[in-house]
């Protein structure tokens, strides 16, 4: 990347510098014998052109909006439009969540992000025995189209973009969204948003799986195919490293395992007969913004470059949009502390800044009280304001990839890409991501345990936990989900089941059962079923009969 003579001069200069450094260190040793990133990449005292002389500006960095997209997916990034400020929200009933959504939109949030409760995510109605105690807790309870209509009441679906954290039953929730839009007079091709729809990371790290991998992959490719024709602006999947990182992986593992999952989805769709450029432009990603600032910035850049290379070289994609890794970011929930929770505001701000400097397309900032409970309204407001300060006040959005060209960041970017590629090769050798679930789980667990040991030995500092502890009162205004939510949902369900056309429901469910055993696309049948007010639990129940359920291997 640099003139040869210049590098030679720098090398000579560096020799002198190193001598000075050694003298200094012999008098006064450094804070630690070795400095490493969270992924274990050793960090040198100083970076100069020498460390990155082997990189080529043209091939390895390029221009934003052009291959290999290291510097960003758009030519002018945030000078054109800020990232989407999108706070993940949902709790209790559809009525309560609808109120929170409208509050967030009034406060300047620019997109919605729906959190569903666990029964919804695992395809059980609120009156199912396994739903007891879980209804409305980690997200909103959605049993039928009726709840979905309430959730988006007075929210114009042609104006907002909506992200839905839903995986195993993603096709059914998308069907409900399409049906609600239709009732609002909004056509499917006007809809903008994302379904997470990433089942592989559920097996690996997040746990809301229902069906075995093969059948899950079929539901996913059905969505790819249907949306390519009918909902062209919809992001059909959000291939997620977020939860892999939360489960304890390193930054390198986050990139590697996420992209390995991505490769598996692309391969599955190609195997199902789809053309890569027909669906790949709608693939999106979701990463974590953790604490090790420069490593995080480098991670986002490395992921973008690696994906562009994989899509071009491995899958022969031609549409530039197929090569672009567009991603959502959420700050790292696992770094929040229950001790001195206001300090979390700072952690979140730095993490969010790394995501912006890494070129994220949308961002969720966590709230200070999330190690204690679901976030209160006042905490969510600070979290949203943090993004607004980064965007509107401190000037970091005024040029593209401002850390590009930093000797350190470029070296780290390259190192992360290389190490992630090594992992992807290992996963290929095992037979691809669906076969390497155990391997990835073991790797993540090793990292998680090491991380915990480093905190306990004091090698890693966590303010308020193992250093600068303080006895403070716990915050009092925590959000408490009404324990009666479950009962209210049960009553709603009973009413629905007595009022709807049950003959019609039986017939659509039976049809789904038949089609599920063929290779015909299931999406139109799901849409018909939800419009007849068949519940999520009923539809998933039929699919459970046909596909069976995934049994987790206990890896520990």
């Amino acid at each position: 990347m640099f003139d040869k003579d210049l590098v030679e001069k720098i090398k000579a200069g560096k020799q002198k510098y190193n001598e000075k450094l050694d003298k200094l260190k012999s008098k006064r040793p450094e804070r630690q014998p070795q400095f490493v990133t969270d992924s274990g990449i050793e960090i040198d005292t100083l970076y100069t052109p020498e460390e990155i002389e082997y990189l080529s500006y043209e091939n390895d960095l390029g221009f934003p909006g052009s291959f290999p997209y290291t510097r960003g997916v758009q030519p002018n990034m945030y000078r054109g439009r800020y990232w989407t400020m999108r706070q993940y929200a949902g709790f209790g009933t559809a009525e309560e969540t609808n109120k929170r959504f409208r509050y967030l939109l009034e406060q300047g949030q620019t997109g919605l992000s729906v959190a569903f409760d666990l029964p919804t995510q695992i395809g059980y109605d609120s009156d199912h025995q396994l739903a007891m105690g879980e209804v409305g807790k980690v997200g909103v309870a959605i049993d039928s189209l009726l709840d979905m209509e309430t959730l988006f009441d007075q929210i114009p679906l042609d104006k907002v973009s909506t992200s839905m954290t839903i995986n195993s039953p993603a096709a059914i929730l998308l069907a409900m969204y399409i049906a609600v839009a239709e009732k609002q007079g909004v056509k499917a091709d006007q809809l903008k948003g994302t379904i997470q729809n990433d089942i592989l990371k559920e097996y690996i790290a997040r746990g809301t799986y229902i069906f075995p991998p093969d059948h899950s992959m079929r539901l996913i490719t059905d969505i790819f195919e249907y949306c390519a024709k009918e909902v062209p602006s919809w992001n059909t999947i959000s291939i997620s490293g977020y939860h892999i990182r939360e489960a304890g992986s390193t930054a390198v593992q986050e990139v590697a395992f996420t992209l390995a999952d991505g490769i598996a989805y692309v391969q599955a769709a190609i195997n199902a007969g789809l053309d890569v450029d027909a669906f790949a432009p709608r693939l999106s990603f979701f990463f974590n913004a953790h604490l090790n600032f420069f490593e995080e910035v480098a991670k986002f850049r490395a992921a973008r470059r690696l994906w562009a290379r994989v899509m071009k070289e491995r899958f022969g994609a031609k549409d530039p949009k197929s090569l672009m890794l567009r991603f959502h970011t959420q700050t790292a929930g696992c770094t929040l502390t229950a001790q001195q929770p206001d300090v979390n505001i700072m952690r979140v701000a730095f993490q969010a800044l790394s995501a912006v400097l890494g070129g994220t397309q949308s961002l969720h900032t966590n709230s200070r009280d999330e190690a204690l409970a679901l976030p209160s309204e006042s905490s969510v407001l600070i979290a949203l304001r943090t993004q607004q300060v980064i965007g509107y006040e401190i000037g970091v959005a005024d040029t593209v990839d401002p850390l590009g060209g930093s000797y350190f960041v470029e070296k780290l970017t390259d190192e992360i890409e290389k190490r992630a590629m090594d992992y992807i090769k290992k996963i290929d050798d095992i037979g691809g991501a669906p076969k390497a679930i155990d391997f990835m789980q073991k790797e993540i667990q090793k990292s998680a345990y090491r991380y915990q040991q480093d905190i306990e030995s004091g090698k890693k500092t966590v303010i308020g936990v193992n250093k600068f502890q303080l006895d403070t009162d716990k915050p009092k205004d925590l959000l408490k989900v009404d324990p009666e939510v479950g009962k209210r949902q049960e009553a709603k369900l009973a009413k629905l089941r007595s009022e709807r056309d049950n003959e019609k429901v039986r017939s659509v469910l039976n049809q789904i059962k038949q089609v599920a055993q063929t290779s015909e696309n299931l999406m139109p049948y799901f849409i018909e079923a939800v419009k007849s007010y068949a519940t999520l639990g009923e539809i998933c129940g039929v699919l459970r009969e046909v596909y069976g359920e995934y049994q987790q291997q206990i890896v520990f």
Partner: protein
Amino acid sequence: MSGKPIRVLVAKPGLDGHDRGAKVIAQALRDAGMEVIYTGLRQTPDQIVGAALQEDVDVVALSCLSGAHMHLFPAVVEGLKQQNAGDILVLGGGIIPEEDIPELKAKGIAEIFTPGTSTVDVINHIKQKIAQR
């Protein structure tokens, strides 16, 4: 106390999929010389009680981050009592608001460990409680 190693069942009740804490604790207890069985995800209280009896454990360590702890933790204690296994030490961990802790303790969960707890504290707590028997 005999020289037999302490046996612990680490369990994930309910639908919650966050198992990082459970697995880290399981490994730390094992490294501290205990015999550890991990149930995996999505266990009902009844299944946990069954596993505790079958594995003849001294301790059941429950982990829940979904907010369903008030429903799930006491159900495990209750189930153990019904099976005449009320002497098994039941511990809980996860995102548990402070105000819920007194009620959980009143219902028989011996201790609640919240985020930021050192695994050493959990190990010492178990050793101490078992030694007192």
